[in-house]
């Protein structure tokens, strides 16, 4: 592994040969998408590490790190601000100034509280908002809040300008695309028309028709939510209307920001399964439709690069092998057959992804890391591999 930890040659990498290098050296935001279990968190951490090792000031935002990964970085979960990795660990990771690596395990509640603190007018308002029952419940919810809060955190750190690059590991989801819908869903949720639903009838003003419609909605709402809860909800929307309007603007500017191909790249991490091709196809389509800059596909846990392995031939056993040795090798050969066909499958898959990625995107493969990326050397190993990875050429 020693050759992976040495500094790379000083020739600047070109996008065509080393697409990951180009991304982490020049973009400001990388959004790493992928279904659960494909190695998305490890990949995005490795990307952040690679960028920091090349001298950039990097923030790794993640939602659901494994405990071991958090330990490897020396970062606790549930801290209310990003933390810098300790100097010893930076040194261990081969990161030298100006390069730096901060990490933050996103906790939706903490992000929401930060927003309230930042946008509230005075301490009294903070107090009132933080104690609102609906707010307390909502901000503690995991389901559905992660996407919003990841987006908000991304917005905040981007504006702050403290980092050259923010790498966002998107929340785990059934399909890789859930996060893409985030900004639009957020804008929808924060849409003024939804507030109207919860403004008590009559207060909204307007003509006879509007008042009548308002009364109907009022009735529907109080039946759906129950009288008492409906009043709580109305109060929530009234107290938070200012903050929600700001968040709505942020969501709008975030959509604009994420569409900038010079600054942003969307990566899809996938693994060799039946679903990966259809996921990739869908991802490509959706990013195009939404005007988001698609960067490429990373086929993780792939054996596509394993072509330099050799088949365990009988010659390995030397002259006159024992019966035990022969039977052992025979069993190994069965496993080797399986791995060889998996390699062929993965190469085919990679070729399909490369075709899917089009002219401006790329597809590349990364191998399985035995035992997972649980310590700094293996994380460095993965990050170097990604940095130097060549795209599949159709």
């Amino acid at each position, binding site marked *: 592994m020693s050759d992976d930890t040495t500094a790379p040659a000083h020739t600047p990498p070109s996008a065509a040969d080393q697409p990951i290098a180009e991304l982490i050296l020049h973009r400001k935001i990388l959004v790493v998408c992928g279904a659960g279990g494909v190695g998305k968190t490890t990949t995005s951490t490795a990307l952040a590490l690679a960028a920091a090792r090349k001298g950039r000031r990097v923030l790794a935002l993640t939602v659901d790190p494994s405990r071991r990964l958090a330990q490897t970085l020396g970062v606790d979960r549930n801290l209310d601000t990003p933390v810098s990795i300790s100097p010893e660990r930076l040194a261990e990771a081969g990161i030298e100034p100006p390069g730096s690596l901060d990490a933050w395990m996103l906790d939706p509640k903490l992000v929401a509280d930060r927003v309230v603190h930042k946008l509230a007018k005075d301490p009294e308002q903070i107090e009132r908002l933080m104690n609102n029952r609906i707010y307390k419940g909502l901000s503690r919810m995991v389901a559905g809040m992660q996407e919003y809060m990841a987006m908000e955190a991304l917005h905040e750190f981007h504006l702050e300008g403290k980092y050259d690059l923010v790498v966002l590991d998107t929340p785990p989801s059934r399909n890789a695309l859930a996060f893409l819908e985030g900004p639009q869903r957020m804008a929808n949720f924060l849409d003024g028309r939804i507030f109207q639903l919860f403004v008590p009838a009559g207060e909204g003003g307007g003509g006879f028709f509007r008042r009548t419609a308002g009364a109907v909605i009022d009735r529907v709402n109080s039946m759906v939510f129950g009288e008492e809860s409906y009043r709580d909800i109305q109060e929530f929307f009234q107290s938070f209307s200012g903050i929600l309007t700001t968040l709505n603007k942020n969501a709008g500017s975030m959509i604009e920001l994420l569409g900038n191909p010079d600054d942003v790249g969307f990566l899809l991490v996938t693994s060799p399964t039946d679903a990966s091709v259809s996921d990739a196809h869908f991802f490509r389509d959706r990013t195009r439709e939404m005007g988001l800059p698609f960067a490429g596909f990373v086929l993780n846990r792939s054996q596509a690069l394993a072509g330099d392995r050799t088949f365990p031939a009988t010659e390995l056993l030397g002259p006159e092998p024992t019966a035990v040795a022969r039977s*052992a090798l025979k069993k190994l050969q069965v496993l080797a057959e399986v791995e060889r066909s998996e390699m062929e499958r993965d190469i085919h898959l990679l070729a399909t992804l490369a075709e899917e990625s089009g002219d401006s995107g790329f597809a590349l493969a990364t191998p399985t890391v035995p035992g997972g990326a649980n310590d700094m050397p293996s994380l460095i190993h993965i990050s170097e591999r990604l940095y130097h990875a060549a795209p599949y050429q159709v």
Partner: protein
Amino acid sequence: MKELFEKRALLITGKGGVGRTTATAALAMAAARSGKRVLIAEMGEPEEDLAALGRLFGRKTLSADPVPLARNIDGVMLWSRKGHERFISVVLPIAALVRAALRSSALRRMLDAAPSLNELGVFYHMLTLARAESPSGGPAWDLIIIDLPATGHALGLATLPDRVLQILPNGPIARAIHEGKDVFFDPEDSAMLVVTLPETLPVTECLELLEGLRETDMPIGGVIVNKVVGDEFTEAERDVLDPLVNDHDLFGATRFLGIGMVERSLRHLRESTGTPIWRLPELSTEGPGLIHGLSDAVLASSNDSGDVE
């Protein structure tokens, strides 16, 4: 694993890539073969091509209303919008009001976008299916098996009812949640099963998930260790191969080393948790043959946690 078939609902979770959907299908097939009427469910949009569970039964998509997949097995896509519609039509007394509410684009957008209302819709859809009755009376299905999307969702679902009750302690939503808790959180009727692989990292993640789940009211049924490969190597054969795979870059080495880790991972799992553990074998078949083969294994499988039997 047959003892699980006496429940009303099984919730299957685990990290992506561990074979959760396959395990769901195999459990369903085994229960169906034991004479149970089974409903299997996954989450998503009906008619979209991502129906992984449907695919195992040769269907590209599933709909929000149950359809027959195999003998004694129906399949459904749990869909938040279906749940919302059902809920609204139960709560609102007048059909015209229901139609107006469902036509309201603002309400529609709110239901689609508000945090957790989506999940609540899915929860309510689950509840309506659990309550569904057969024409002859009694529940329409003996057993409902739900393929939950990912680890995070399992915890999200496990904590959802109490979180929502915190926000909305009274009213129709709260009543529905209490009713849902009676079904899905009752250890008599329901169990969550965590699927994992016999490898170091998946076992660690499984233990973390179990720890998280123990802080909730969700009844934990046990762990299913999937893709357990039988170790066909004798000690003497290992001694021959160990130096070979170290000195050469060989095809087959990854699997050979992985097999050596299986028993160690299982032991770690056994020692770290008191829940039942079942094994499912790795089979080389695919599609319906795989599900059938695994259902054989389900029917034959007994608790491996060491403290039972």
